[in-house]
C-alpha cells in the first residue's frame, strides 16, 4: 500500500496573513485520518487547498502520485511580472494608434470596446492574485489577433471602400502593410510563449477544482452547500456529473446511450441515498430536509462521484449524540467500501472513536500528530485547546 495523498510543506498566505505554514501530511488508502484544531487554525483553508479552490503559495500536493499544484519561484515571478507590464504598456499604446489610422470606424469602435473590456478584466483580475499575468497575456494576444485578422480581411476584400480614407490612398495602403505583418508576428510570438507553457510553468500550475473531483477527491462543506432548489435525487445525480459522459449532441438526439446513462445514474443515485439512509426523501426538494439529513445528503453527493478520498468538513457540527453515533457508523461503512476519509471535526468523542491517525493544527501550523491516544496525552495539544491545564475530553 502506498500513500494516496501526500502533502509536503504546504503553505498558504493571504497577503500578509499566513494561514498555513509548512504542513506535511499523509493519507493511506482506506485510512481514516482526522484533523483537529481550535477555530481559525487553518483546517478549512487546508481543505480548500486540497480541492484546489485555493492555490497554495508553497509546497506540494500529490494525489495518487499526480501533483495537484507545484510551488512557484518568486524570482521567476518577478521576471514574468516585468515582462507582462512591458507588453501591456506597449500593447495599450500600439492598439489605439494603429486602429485610429488603419481601421474603419466601426471596427475601431469594436476594438475600443474590447480594449475597455480588457482593462475592466484587469481591474477585476487584480483581486485574484496569481493568475493575472497569464490572463493579461491571453487578452493581449486575443486583441492583437483580432485586430490583425480584421486588418487582413479589409485589406484583402476592399479594393475601394468609400468610407475609409486611408484605404483609398494607395501608397498608404502599402505603408499599412508592414504594420499588419509586424502585428501578426508579434501575436504569433506571444502565442508561442503561451503555448509552450513557459508562463504556466513559471507560475506553477494549478489543477481546477472540477478536475480534482474527477480524479477522485470529493468533499463536503462546513456550511452546507447543497443545491437547495433541486430534488434530493438531482443533487446526487449532479454529484455523479464527472462519471457521466453524454454531451450536447447525445442529449439533443436523446440516444440510447444517453437514456441508459440517465437510468443508471438514477439507480446509482438511489443506491447512494439508501447508503446514507435518505431513500424515502429522494423526491423531496433539498430545501425541505432537516439539518442532519442535509449533512448526510452532502456526503451522499460526494460519494456519488466515486471518490478515492473523501474530505469531510465538520460533518458532526450541530448534531446530537444519537445522530453523531449514526455518522460514525456511516463513515466506517464508507471506509469499508474502500474509500479513504480525511475528516475535520470539533467533536472529540467522534474523532477519538473514528480516526486511525490524527493531525493537530494550531495557527496554521502542525503542532502534533499521532494515534488518538497519543494526541490526547500530548501537552502541546492540551495547551492549544485549553491554554494549559486540564485534560481534553
Amino acid at each position: 500500500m502506498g500513500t494516496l495523498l501526500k502533502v509536503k510543506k504546504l503553505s498558504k498566505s493571504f497577503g500578509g496573513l499566513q494561514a498555513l505554514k509548512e504542513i506535511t501530511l499523509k493519507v493511506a488508502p482506506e485510512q481514516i485520518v482526522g484533523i483537529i484544531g481550535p477555530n481559525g487554525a487553518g483546517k478549512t483553508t487546508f481543505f480548500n487547498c486540497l480541492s484546489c479552490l485555493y492555490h497554495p503559495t508553497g509546497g506540494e500536493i500529490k494525489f495518487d502520485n499526480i501533483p495537484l499544484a507545484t510551488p512557484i519561484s518568486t524570482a521567476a515571478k518577478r521576471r514574468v511580472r516585468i515582462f507582462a507590464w512591458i507588453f501591456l504598456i506597449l500593447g495599450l499604446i500600439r492598439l489605439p494608434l494603429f486602429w485610429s489610422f488603419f481601421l474603419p470606424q466601426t471596427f475601431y469602435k469594436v476594438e475600443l470596446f474590447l480594449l475597455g473590456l480588457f482593462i475592466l478584466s484587469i481591474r477585476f483580475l487584480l483581486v485574484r492574485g496569481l493568475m493575472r499575468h497569464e490572463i493579461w497575456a491571453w487578452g493581449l494576444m486575443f486583441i492583437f489577433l483580432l485586430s490583425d485578422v480584421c486588418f487582413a480581411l479589409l485589406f484583402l476584400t476592399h479594393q475601394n471602400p468609400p468610407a475609409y480614407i486611408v484605404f483609398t490612398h494607395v501608397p498608404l495602403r502599402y505603408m499599412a502593410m508592414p504594420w499588419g505583418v509586424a502585428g501578426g508576428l508579434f501575436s504569433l510570438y506571444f502565442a508561442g510563449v503561451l503555448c509552450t507553457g513557459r508562463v504556466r510553468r513559471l507560475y506553477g500550475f494549478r489543477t481546477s477544482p472540477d478536475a480534482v473531483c474527477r480524479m477522485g477527491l470529493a468533499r463536503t462543506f462546513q456550511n452546507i452547500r447543497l443545491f437547495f432548489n433541486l430534488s434530493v435525487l438531482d443533487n446526487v445525480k449532479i454529484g455523479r456529473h464527472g462519471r457521466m459522459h453524454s454531451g450536447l449532441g447525445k442529449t439533443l438526439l436523446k440516444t440510447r446511450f444517453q437514456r441508459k446513462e440517465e437510468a443508471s445514474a438514477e439507480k446509482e443515485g438511489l443506491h447512494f441515498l439508501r447508503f446514507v439512509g435518505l431513500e424515502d426523501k429522494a423526491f423531496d426538494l433539498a430545501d425541505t430536509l432537516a439539518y442532519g439529513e442535509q449533512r448526510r445528503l452532502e456526503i451522499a453527493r460526494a460519494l456519488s462521484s466515486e471518490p478515492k478520498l473523501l474530505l469531510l468538513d465538520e460533518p458532526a457540527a450541530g448534531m446530537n449524540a444519537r445522530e453523531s453515533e449514526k455518522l460514525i457508523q456511516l463513515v466506517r461503512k464508507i471506509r469499508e467500501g474502500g474509500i479513504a476519509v480525511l475528516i475535520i471535526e470539533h467533536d472529540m468523542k467522534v474523532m477519538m472513536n473514528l480516526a486511525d491517525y490524527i493531525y493537530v493544527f494550531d495557527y496554521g501550523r502542525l503542532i502534533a500528530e499521532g494515534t488518538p491516544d497519543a494526541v490526547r496525552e500530548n501537552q502541546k495539544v492540551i495547551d492549544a485547546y485549553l491554554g494549559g491545564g486540564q485534560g481534553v475530553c
Partner: protein
Amino acid sequence: MSLSPKNPRVLFLAILFLAVILPWIPLGPSTNYLLRVLTSAVLYMILALGLNIVPGFTGLLDLGYVGFYGIGAYTSGLLAIHYDLSLWVILPLAAANGALWGVLLGAPTLRLTGDYFAIVTFGFSELVVLLIRNELWLTRGPMGLPGIPPPAIFGYALTQGWQYFYLALFLLLVVLVVVVRLENSRLGRAWFAIREDETAAQCCGISLIRYKVMAFAASAAIGAMGGAFYAKWFRFIHPDMFKFWESILILCLIVFGGMGSIAGTMLGALILIPLTEVLRTALPQSMFNARYLIYGLLLVLMMRLRPEGLIPFQLSRSRKAEQAKARLLGGEE
C-alpha cells in the same frame, strides 16, 4: 387543484390543439389580426425559451440577448436575398452563426462575475446594432433590409397569416423539445448546479467556464433562430428593431413567468405580448406609449405578490421530482 404529473401535459396538449384549429375558427375579419398577434406571441415564446437558459437555468444576467436575435435576423435576411437559400438551410445556419458569436463572446467574458458580465453583454448588443447601422456595404445600415423573399416549403411560398402561424408553432415545438431535453439531462443539471452554488458545482466536477459557454451558445442559437424566423416573416429588417428595449422586454417575460421554469416562461410570453396589443387598442393614440408604464406596474405588482413568477422554478422542479418518483417507483412494482 391536484398537481398530478399528467395534468400539465394534458393542459399543454389542449392548448396546442386550440392553437392548431385556431385559424379555422370563423372570427370574421379579425382572424388575420389575431393570427398576427399570436404569431408574434409564439415568436416571443421561442425567444424567451432561449434567453431562459442563461439567466433562468445558469443564473447569469444577460442583457444582450437581442444582439443574437439581430445576428440571426440579418444572417437570415442576407442569405435569403443574396443566395436565395431554402428556409431549412437558413434556420440552422442562422442558429450556428448565433452560437458562434455566443462562444466568441462567452469564452473570454464568462470568467467575469455578476454585474461585470451583464455590462459586457449589454455592450455586445449595442455593438451589434452599431455594426448593422454602419456597415452599409453589408447591411445597408439605417435604410434597412427590404425585400426578403418569403419562405418556401416544398417549393410553395408562404403568404397567408395562418401559414406563418403554423411555421412559428412548429419552430416553437422544436425549440421546446430541445430545451426540455437539455433541462432533463446532465447538462441541465450542471447549469442548475452553477446557478445554485458555483463553488459546490465546481467541487462536483462541473467545469464552470465550459458549461457557462455552452449555455450561452445554446441560448444564442435559439435567439438567432428566432431572429431568422422574424426576418422571414416580417420580410423587412431594420437596426432599430434590435434595440436594447427588446432584451429588457424578453427578460421581463421570463421574470414575469418564472425564471428557470419552461412552462412559466411560455406563459409569461403568452400573457404579456398579446397584452401589448390589447393596450394598443384600449389606450388612446396619444397615450400609446403609456403601455410601458403598465408593463412596469405589472412587474412591480408581480414582485410584490409573487416574486418568483407565475410558475416558480421550485414548483416546476418539485413537479419534475414527482414525475420521476412515479416513473421510478412505478417501474419497480
